[in-house]
């Protein structure tokens, strides 16, 4: 049963993403979602480029994004399945959620590698 082997890993990715989102998300949303686009603070592009392209930042950003995507996949899977009582659609829901996280993670890897 491959499902039994995968389940603990999915739980670890879920809880890892939960911790990461709890700690990093508020400051990231305030900075990049509100303060910078709305001009509350001014950031020099060259500085931001230097910070983002530094190898450690690339690694951290990749880790954050992958964990947060799998956190979403695992939680949203059960929100759909249990919340909306869609138990008969268990397989397509799981494929859609984890598949989405895998596709997003590959895209993130490519973006980080080709910066």
């Amino acid at each position, binding site marked *: 049963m491959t499902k039994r082997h995968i389940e*603990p890993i999915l*739980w670890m990715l*879920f*809880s890892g*993403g*939960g*911790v990461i*989102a*709890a*700690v*990093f*998300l*508020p*400051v*990231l*949303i*305030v*900075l*990049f*979602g*509100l303060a*910078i*686009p*709305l*001009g509350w*603070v001014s*950031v020099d*592009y060259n*500085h*931001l*480029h230097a*910070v*983002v*392209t530094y190898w450690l930042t690339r690694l951290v*950003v990749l880790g*954050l*994004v992958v964990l*947060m*995507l799998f*956190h*979403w*996949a*695992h*939680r*949203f*899977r*059960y*929100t759909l*399945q*249990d*919340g909306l009582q869609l138990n008969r659609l268990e397989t397509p829901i799981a494929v859609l959620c984890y598949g989405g996280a895998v596709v*997003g993670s590959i*895209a*993130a890897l490519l*973006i*980080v590698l*080709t*910066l």
Partner: protein
Amino acid sequence: MKKRSYFMFVLRELSSVFVAWFAVFLMIMVFAIGRGEASYQNFMSWAASPVVVVINIVALAFAILHTVTWFALTPQAMVVRFGGRQVPAMKEVRVAGRYVPAATVVRVGGRVPAGLVVASQWAGLVVVSAFVAWLVLR
């Protein structure tokens, strides 16, 4: 009271959608930064459009809800040592709509009062937030 806690449960579960939204938002931003200043400016003017700003305000509210509920859950999910034996603070914890054995979520040894765990998580959040803000804004 029951209705209210169910409402909060649904909200907490929905927070994952905004976690995914901002993960995608971040990746697009990093991609734009890599493509040059013009594409970065384009991204930021898109991010300043009313619809995206509203989504991010809602996302921030859900992120804060996620932080508060996740931090409150961690001590319950920890394995606490009591008199030399490992005792789960709670036998089962409800996460993502499922009851799971407490120890699957976080495993920490030692005698740690729940209040201290929550306080140290908030301290961690303050340090990380300050560092990220310093790194970006300096």
